[in-house]
């Protein structure tokens, strides 16, 4: 099954948005304009967008500490995301979340959990909710190969299978959890196979091939909407940059420079998709147009973010409670 041209165009646009947003973000981070920690998804755009594009706007999603790609993949606008990275009042999370937590609820993201494995039960809860509410909403749950070893993976997949919840568990398997390879952390390296333990289909796909990810996810979405329950998809992908921008890791490298180079050269999801588009339905000019519009979007987002104000000290307590009750006044004996 091939994607329509419209979808191809949107797919390419979102993949490129992630790439450009993060390239610029990395630059701004190194320049000291983005505080905190910065985890880029560069290299993993095919997996992210391939999965997201299989969803409807009303579908839900959860992500991880590597959180920029997920909202962009789901269609979020860039301005509030970039402002959030800079800790501005106009940020998508009003400056309270930052790089590891770019949740954009307007595109269905209910949370980006920087607690590894923490988002898996939330997505499962969204599936349960969809079932109780009797909607046909599905929830796409992103997590990494490292998160597979958390108890929440096991407990949540069991429940989702038991109750046939409409959840797609999508493992972005980039081979490493910070410096820890699968061989050094998984008793059995085949992640898709773990699905069998729960009586759930488990599928491994080439995460650098956005169409393959889209196809597998679409099938899982259809299955979920039919009421046939969850699917585990393992997308084999690769992270081109370090775990976190500027992270210094002493001692023997945990992955070879060649491995990284080979992947960048031969397994870049953007290059692969671009080539495929040119080979089939798109002209250079068409792609070029997408590319320059994405560059402009990212530039506008940076301008917006830089021009935005920081939240004032007086706003520190805002958004703590939906129904605030204050005994005694919050700052009474505190530093503020």
């Amino acid at each position: 099954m091939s994607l329509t041209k419209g979808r191809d165009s949107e797919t390419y646009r979102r993949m490129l948005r992630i790439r450009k947003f993060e390239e610029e973000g990395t630059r701004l981070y190194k320049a000291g304009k983005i505080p905190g920690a910065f985890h880029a998804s560069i290299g993993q755009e095919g997996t992210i967008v391939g999965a997201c594009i299989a969803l409807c706007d009303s579908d839900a999603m959860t992500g991880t500490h590597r959180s920029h790609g997920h909202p962009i993949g789901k269609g979020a606008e860039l301005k509030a995301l970039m402002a959030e990275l800079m800790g501005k009042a106009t940020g998508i999370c009003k400056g309270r979340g930052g790089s590891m937590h770019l949740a954009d609820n307007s595109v269905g993201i209910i949370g980006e959990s920087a607690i590894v494995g923490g988002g898996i039960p939330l997505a499962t809860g969204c599936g349960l909710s969809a079932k109780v509410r009797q909607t046909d909403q599905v929830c796409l749950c992103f997590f990494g190969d490292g998160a597979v070893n958390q108890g929440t993976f096991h407990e949540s997949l069991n429940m989702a299978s038991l109750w046939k919840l409409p959840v797609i568990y999508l493992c972005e398997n980039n081979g490493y959890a910070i410096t820890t390879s699968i061989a050094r952390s998984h008793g059995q390296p085949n992640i898709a196979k773990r699905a069998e333990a729960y009586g759930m289909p488990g599928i491994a796909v080439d995460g650098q091939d956005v169409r393959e990810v889209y196809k597998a996810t679409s099938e899982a979405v259809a299955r979920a909407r039919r009421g046939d329950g969850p699917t585990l998809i393992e997308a084999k992908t690769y992270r081109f940059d370090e775990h976190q921008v500027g992270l210094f890791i002493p001692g023997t490298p945990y992955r070879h420079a060649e491995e990284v180079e080979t992947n960048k050269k031969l397994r870049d999801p953007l290059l692969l998709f671009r080539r495929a588009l040119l080979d089939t339905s798109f002209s250079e000019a068409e792609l070029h147009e997408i590319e320059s519009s994405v560059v402009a979007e990212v530039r506008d987002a940076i301008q917006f973010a830089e021009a935005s104000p920081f939240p004032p000290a007086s706003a520190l307590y805002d958004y703590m409670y939906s129904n605030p009750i204050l005994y005694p006044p919050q700052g009474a004996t505190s530093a503020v």
Partner: protein
Amino acid sequence: MSLAINKPRPDTMVQMTFLDALVQAQIEELERDERVIVMGEDIAVYGGGKLVSRFDERRIWSMPISETSFTGVGIGAAMTGLRPIVDLSIASFMYLASDPIINQASKLRYMTGGQVKVPVVFRCCMYYGSSLAAQHSDRPYPQFLNVPGLKIISPTSPADIKGLLKSAVRDDDPVLIFEDTKLWPVKGEVPTDPDHLVPIGKAEIKRAGSDVTVVAIGGAMRLAMDAAKDLAEEGISIELIDPRTLKPLDMDTIMASVAKTGRLVLVENAHRVANLSSEIAALIAEEGFESLKKPIRRLCAPDVHVPFSPALEQHVFPGKAQIVAAVKGLM
């Protein structure tokens, strides 16, 4: 006409146990709002038999033994339109749920800049004093007091558990209910009004008095009431306060009482280090210092695990005699 007479008027009271009031509150909320669901293990075994027989599986969810994740499932469901009551059963098991409660439920509204709300209720039953030993006898609420973003209640009367549980279900923030199971059989008058709500964040003066302020928490309240009665006979007048909500704490009520009496005794069954009594004592030492005539007295479980043997366990929790002695010591 006869039908109308049979239907209880909103201000009608009935006599029922704490446990029945607790179940009744859930039944009424389940019937009022179809977004309310109940999740837990062996719900019928832990007092919820009526829930299981009355509602179907789409409302009452039987959980596998996966406390960490089903807590997270409740949070995820709360963020996407439901209002789950998550029954964590025995409070000693809730450490398995600490991560989702603290890192997700308490933080997500703030971390998303208000994009989501997390209307979830956690029921945690504190069993102790019945030889279940340390792995089943914790009173862990002091640990959660330190966590911003949570609301914590621990009612001590049937009317309050009904009214506060209902308020919790209708609240848009995560609320932890710590039930002292020693109170389950206690009887009292309970309003039948299905909208009987007790506000979260308001203490109650159980008994007005002038000599000594006593704040008692959870199961300690019954003993404190008895002690106050005995002391009254000896001419000592106790002002007895039930915080009901442990976070955020209604310090106005406590502070006003101490301003009047100048003497404070705190009674609590949790371990003594950094518990609610510590916090109340600290706040008084900061802001009510000028009114204090005497040192504050805390009566709490000591810093030791709850032993199995009744011969030992009986010495762990403060009793009526200690409350009486502590009050007299301040006169």
